[in-house]
C-alpha cells in the first residue's frame, strides 16, 4: 500500500468540493461559514502533497508553508464571520 500525488490530489479535491457544498447548501450563515475551513483544508492538502512528492528544486517546503498560512487564514475567517454574525442577547 502506498500513497502517490494523485491520491493526495483526490483527497484534496474531495475536501474542496465538500467545503463548497457546505458553503452552498447550508441556509444558516455561520454554518455555511464552516465550509470555508474545509475548502482551505483541501487546498492545504494539495500544497502539502506537492511539497512531499513533486517539489524538485529551490525551496522544497513552500507547500508546507502555504498549508500553515491557510490554517491561520481559516481561523481568522471563522473568527471574523462569527464576530460579524454577532452575539445574541439573552432572553
Amino acid at each position: 500500500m502506498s500513497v502517490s500525488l494523485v491520491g493526495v490530489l483526490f483527497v484534496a479535491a474531495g475536501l474542496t468540493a465538500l467545503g463548497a457544498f457546505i458553503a452552498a447548501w447550508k441556509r444558516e450563515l455561520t454554518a455555511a461559514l464552516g465550509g470555508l475551513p474545509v475548502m482551505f483544508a483541501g487546498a492545504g492538502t494539495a500544497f502539502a502533497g506537492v511539497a512531499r512528492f513533486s517539489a524538485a528544486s529551490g525551496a522544497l517546503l513552500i507547500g508546507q508553508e502555504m498549508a500553515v498560512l491557510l490554517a491561520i487564514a481559516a481561523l481568522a475567517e471563522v473568527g471574523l464571520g462569527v464576530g460579524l454574525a454577532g452575539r445574541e442577547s439573552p432572553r
Partner: protein
Amino acid sequence: MDSLHAIGFYVSAALAGLGGILLAFLRGHARRGAALALTGLGLAGIYASLSAGFAAIAVLVCYAAAALVLARPDHRTVEQVTGGLWRQVGALGAAVLLGVLAYAAFRGTFAHATFYGGAFGSVSVARLLFAHDALATEAVGGLVLIALVGAAAAWRRERPREDREGRR
C-alpha cells in the same frame, strides 16, 4: 512512503471527510464545532503522514480554536435569503467542481521528486516563513490581527434573538 504512513494517510483522510460530512448535516452549534474539530484532526493526520509535522501542529491549534469559536452557544443565527433552487444549483456546482478536480488529478502529468526533508521540518518552514517569505507572513499576520479586532468590535454589540423553531 511505507505502508504505515499510507494507512495513516487514508485513515486521516477518512476522518477529515467524515468531519466535513457531519459539518454539512448536523444541527446545533456544539455539534458543528465538534465536526470541524474532527476535520482538523483528520487534516493534521494527513499532514503528519506527508512529513509535514509542523504544519500538522499548526492545523491542530488553528482548527481547534476555530471549532471552539464555531461551537459557542451565544452567537446569532443568521439565515440566508437565497431560495432552495439556488442552493441546489450551488450543490450541483460543488459536484461539478469535484468532477473537474478529480479529472485534473487523474489526467495530469506531475513531476516526481525524492523528498529529502525530515518528518517535522520546523526549522526549514520557519526559515521560509521568517526569512524567505517574510512579507507574506507579515501580510497574513496583519490579516489575522484586523480580522480578530473587527470580530471583537462586532461581537460587543448584542443583537435581538430571533425565533426560528422548525426551520433550517
